[in-house]
């Protein structure tokens, strides 16, 4: 009888020990798996954080660099425009310099040549130009060429416009037209002179 009693209790204790051991093993697995998963999740958070940090860094830097590039371009443009304004001022006053006569002759010759007609009308107009000197130039032109001296500077800055009598062919050789034709070269010349580029 005693044996049976002991046997029942012994079996129960063995079973209880199995239950506890199973629970402890399962608890160990839960702990291990949880640690591994937590580490994995933490690594993912940090990995994403590094990507986000790089994105933030690029965002801040690129917008500031872009803004600074714009500041530089704006300043360069202002400088070039300021030079061009001085150039225009210089051109409008050209009549009082010794560059005027040779330039005028060249402008007229170019315009007449470009029109290429026998009955060319040449109009000239400069600020503060002496009418006498302009008229003397008119007398040197080929026969059949009509020479007109305008009271006001052509295209505001002055220059020469030639055309045939019918007005079909016109060549504008005013300072403003020349500036427009030379736009790229002018910008390059001014930039390279000021900025050394």
């Amino acid at each position, binding site marked *: 009888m005693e044996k049976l*009693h002991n046997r*029942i*209790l012994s079996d*129960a204790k063995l*079973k*209880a*020990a199995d*239950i*506890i051991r199973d*629970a*402890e093993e*399962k*608890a*160990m697995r*839960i*702990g291990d*798996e*949880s*640690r591994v998963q*937590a580490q994995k*999740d933490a*690594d993912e*958070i940090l990995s994403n*954080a590094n990507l*986000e*940090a*790089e994105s*933030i*860094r690029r*965002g*801040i*830097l690129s917008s*500031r660099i872009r803004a*600074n590039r714009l*500041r*530089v371009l704006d*300043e*360069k443009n202002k*400088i070039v425009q*300021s*030079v061009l304004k*001085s*150039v225009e001022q*210089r*051109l409008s006053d*050209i009549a009082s310099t010794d*560059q005027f006569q*040779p*330039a005028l002759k*060249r402008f007229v010759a170019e315009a007449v040549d470009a029109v290429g007609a026998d009955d060319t009308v040449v109009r000239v107009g400069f600020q503060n130009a002496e009418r006498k000197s302009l008229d003397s130039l008119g007398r040197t032109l080929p026969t059949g060429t009509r020479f007109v001296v305008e009271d006001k500077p052509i295209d505001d800055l002055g220059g020469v416009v030639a055309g045939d009598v019918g007005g079909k062919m016109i060549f504008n050789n005013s*300072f403003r037209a020349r*500036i427009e034709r*030379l736009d790229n070269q*002018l910008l390059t*010349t*001014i930039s390279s*002179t*000021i*900025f*050394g580029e």
Partner: protein
Amino acid sequence: MVSWSRDCLSGMEAVRKIVETEAQAKRIIEDAKSRAQEILESASAEAQRVRQTALSRAEQEKARILKEAREKAEADARSSDEETNALLANYKKLFENRKEVAVKKAVELILGG
């Protein structure tokens, strides 16, 4: 008759004892199950605590990384501002020094001499 009664009693006593022992065995197992449940609950709670700690540390580290990245980028951006300011100041000087030459060259180009 007495002998039968004695036998009968000892048999009943034996059954009672077995029932008691079985009950005791059942209690042992129930206690073990209860203990096992506690172990598992404790393990789950500990796992949750470990997870929270790890994630919390990671979030703190993330905040530090982002803060550092912002500060570094702002510092680099300030450096870019300073470089740009220096460049603009240099342009101003170049403009003052070379404006006359640039105007002269441009005028010559337009006059076509």
